[in-house]
């Protein structure tokens, strides 16, 4: 599988772990990761995606909505003429959401605590792809449909397998680990200590730093600080990402984009020199702390500067790396899942920012 990939490169997820239940896998490869990266993650999520913004802004005044998997709640305040309630599995993200003044609670997407048919609409942005089996993904959609009234609409975004922007994924591998590197320390150390960091595109850093200070990512501060790195954000998911596959490595080398301050640069470097450091022990504990390889990358970047342009020396000195599980959706797959529920029709669908999305309308409640 991924023995040749350096630690930071997304790797194929080993679905075959008989000793773990789906719940345990999600706990380890999704929930605990978000808990750990919450402040940093939150600092990179502030710019609403246009499709979502449009969806919310065209809702009638006074409508009541649920944001299932709301993270830091960046969509909850988009339209103040609506009343929205956010929920997420991560209590750390929900704390941030709540501090921003939003209605927020901790719960599981497969067991929402709401009365049936209460909501006029719901959104689930970049959430369903974290469920580990097709059955659980359908169940998640059904649970969202349960809480929405008949005639109500639901907007769902999931990460696309076909994305070609920041990274190319192996089109054969839908279940992957995508690393998230915490770059906190580096920032501070960099600043204060030694060398100059080519400023390249270190959005995440700036953001993070701010975020750090505010502990829980005060929306304003974080937002402002991050203002410059906004785009990066959209590709947010991309922040630490890249492709799963080996051949992708080659492509990476050719990549032009600098947006991914974390993953990409490192990958390039690593692809060349990290082989040794660490095999992706995808199965061990969720938070992989790959200090070693990160360090290597940093060193390289700073000293050699192989490709000044797309080598944002963002690499953090000793950044912990966390692997998140994703199921990458191929074209039409989301719609298939929706139709399996037999309770909704598809009103609109599309592709945006590396995601497949669709708007459904609940047609019946059983």
């Amino acid at each position, binding site marked *: 599988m991924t023995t040749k990939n350096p630690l930071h490169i997304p790797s194929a997820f080993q679905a075959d772990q008989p000793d773990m239940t789906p719940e345990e896998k999600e706990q380890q490869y999704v929930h605990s990761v978000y808990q750990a990266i919450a402040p940093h993650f939150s600092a990179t999520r502030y710019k609403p995606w246009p499709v979502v913004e449009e969806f919310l802004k065209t809702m009638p*005044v006074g409508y009541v909505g649920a944001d299932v998997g709301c993270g830091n709640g960046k969509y909850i305040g988009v339209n103040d003429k609506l009343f929205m*309630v956010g929920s997420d599995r991560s*209590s750390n993200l929900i704390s941030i959401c709540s501090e921003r003044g939003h209605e927020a609670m901790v719960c599981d997407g497969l067991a929402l605590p709401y009365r049936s048919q209460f909501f006029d609409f719901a959104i689930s942005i970049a959430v369903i792809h974290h469920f580990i089996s097709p059955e659980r993904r359908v169940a998640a959609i059904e649970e969202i449909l349960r809480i929405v009234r008949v005639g109500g609409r639901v907007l769902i975004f999931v990460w696309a397998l076909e994305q070609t922007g920041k990274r190319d994924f192996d089109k054969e591998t839908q279940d992957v680990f995508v690393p998230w590197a915490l770059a906190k320390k580096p920032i501070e150390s960099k600043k204060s200590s030694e060398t100059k960091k080519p400023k390249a595109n270190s959005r995440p850093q700036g953001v993070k730093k701010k975020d750090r200070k505010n502990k829980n990512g005060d929306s304003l501060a974080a937002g402002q600080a991050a203002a410059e790195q906004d785009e990066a954000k959209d590709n947010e998911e991309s922040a630490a990402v890249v492709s799963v596959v080996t051949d992708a490595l080659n492509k990476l080398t050719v990549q032009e984009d600098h947006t991914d301050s974390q993953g990409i640069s490192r990958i390039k470097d690593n692809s060349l020199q990290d082989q040794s450091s660490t095999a992706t022990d995808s199965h061990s504990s969720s938070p992989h702390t790959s200090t070693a390889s990160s360090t290597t990358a940093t060193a390289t970047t700073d000293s050699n500067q192989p490709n000044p342009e797309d080598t944002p020396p963002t690499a953090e000195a000793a950044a912990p790396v966390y692997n998140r599980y994703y199921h990458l959706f191929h074209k039409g797959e989301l719609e298939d899942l929706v139709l399996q529920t037999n309770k909704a029709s598809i009103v609109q669908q599309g592709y945006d920012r590396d995601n497949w999305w669709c708007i459904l309308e609940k047609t019946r409640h059983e």
Partner: protein
Amino acid sequence: MRLITHNMLQCHVKGCNANNFPLELQEVVLEQEEAEMNEDFLRNMLTKIEYDALVATCLKLDINDLPATIPADAAYNDEFLQILHRVILETHIKSGKMVCPNCQHNYIIRDGIPNMLLAEHEV
């Protein structure tokens, strides 16, 4: 958590499907916080709210402002809408717990955030 949100919640423990609403608030600390009034929202809410449950919950919290039954002209009764607004949108539960009247499951509210996560065997 606002009182309106409490009115949306039900116990979702596996198999707990009857008499699981409203969750009973206990050891509650309340806080009033002003919010902008949105009549459209309140009118829409009137169609969704379980009014009897709301009134009963309020009485237990010593909030006695709501009439026992919804006024016939509720949707355009300014005085009523203002009371409703204050009660469901400006009254926050900062801490306490919610107990299912059926299975007795406890949901803890801390820092204004309800934890509705269940143990694995309860899902």
